């Protein structure tokens, strides 16, 4: 267990399972999670998806802050914690109580990595997220920076201000800033792997190879799960 008063220091137990994927942009984690959901549904398990930054009420405030560029490292951190908290209370915990398999694309580790890169104290952000449920298993999709950048930037995306870390004033140019920002986030993720025992997935492998490995991990947690009556209609 982790330091008193921080994330992971309390443990709850629910009938459901919580699996989460983490990694920098371009690590392929969302693709893997979508494939996982397809498989679990086809096997008859009740599956609930929870995405980062998706609480209906809070999302509006977040995008307002982003558009106006008025978010500071502190309010950026707090508004994402607000969003996450709403989803924990109203989506994740009730689903776990009901025995569902909850799949989360990004979890507290995204905040631990991004907010700390923005200068928020590590101890504070870990305490902020103390209310979060510990996942059954957390997967980190490890990918070299150049590979992830090639995947993202070759699609010529319109990078947004905060997405590119422009608020940190690392570089004047969007894609230059994005590269530096992602490399710092990558460093933070690598620190989180041993701290929270994240399961490392080799995200340079072919999609099917990764998916096979992921399903093997998940299967080991499902022996006592109810299934069959929930097949997708």
């Amino acid at each position, binding site marked *: 267990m982790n330091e008193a*008063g921080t994330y992971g220091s309390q443990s709850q137990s629910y009938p459901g399972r919580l699996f989460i994927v983490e990694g920098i942009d371009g690590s392929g984690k969302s693709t893997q999670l979508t494939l996982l959901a397809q498989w679990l549904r086809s096997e008859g398990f009740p599956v609930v998806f929870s995405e980062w930054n998706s*609480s*209906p*009420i*809070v999302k*509006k*405030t977040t995008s*307002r*802050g982003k558009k*106006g560029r*008025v*978010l*500071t*490292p*502190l*309010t950026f951190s*707090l*508004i994402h*914690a*607000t*969003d996450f*908290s*709403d989803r*924990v*209370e*109203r989506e994740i915990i009730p689903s776990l109580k009901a025995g569902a398999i909850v799949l989360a694309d990004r979890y507290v580790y995204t905040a631990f990595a991004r907010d700390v890169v*923005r*200068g*928020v*104290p590590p*101890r*504070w952000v870990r*305490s*902020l997220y*103390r*209310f979060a449920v510990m996942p059954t298993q957390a997967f980190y999709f490890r990918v070299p920076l150049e590979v992830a950048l090639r995947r993202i930037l070759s699609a010529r995306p319109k990078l947004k201000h905060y997405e590119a870390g422009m608020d940190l004033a690392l570089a004047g140019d969007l894609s230059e800033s994005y590269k530096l920002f992602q490399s710092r986030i990558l460093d933070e993720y690598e620190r989180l792997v041993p701290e929270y025992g994240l399961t490392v997935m080799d995200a340079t492998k072919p999609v099917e190879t990764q998916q096979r490995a992921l399903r093997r991990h998940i299967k080991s947690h499902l022996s006592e799960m109810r299934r069959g009556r929930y097949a997708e209609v």
Partner: protein
Amino acid sequence: MPKFDSLGTGIPGVSPEELSGWLIVIEGTDGVGRSTQINRLRAHLERLGYAVAETGLSRSDLASKGIRRAKQGNTLGSNAFNLFYATDFADRLEHQIIPALRSGFVMLTDRYVYSLIARAIVRGADPDWIKQVYSFSLKPDAVLYLRLEVPELAQRALATGGFDYWESGMDLPMGEDIYDSFMNYQSRVIEELDKLAREYGFQTIDASRDIDSNAEDLARRVEAVLAASGRDPVLNPFER
């Protein structure tokens, strides 16, 4: 010497040494007369030549709209509400309070983190956790806590348009009807504020006296805080 030491972790990118103003907090439950007193205090301080600014809960550009929306539908989780208020507070701290203090203003704040901590605890938040969340906030130069007993608060609520849904804790609720809930909820809030008053050294003021006596009391206390800084007020050339 730093004017403020933060309650804990501080704010990324802000050093307390550059803040030359004063942070004066007026705390107390709904109906104790905070806004009347703040108006009087502001006029008094401006007469002495101090530049005065004001802020209060859920008045941020960033989150006040979202909070209002969430309150209307009651569609936000209880803990998420606590954090939404924290977001609102952080936005005001960074965009209103800190700039005013940098410019040497007297910042009068209509409630501060203490009310937010109290309302969170009454709604089941862990006291250590919510205090840790707010550990980035600045330590005020003075916290003036206007205090009234619950029966008198109820009388004042009746006289000024009745019981407010949220100020009666009806989201919980804490009684069979809004009156019962108001009484129970406000008692719990006062209980928590009293604890915070001891922990953070508030100046507790009996608000049951008339408006003029309270205003005089507050003015005297704030003048003492300002005088302790060694910076003199602007003298009125018509006196002496």
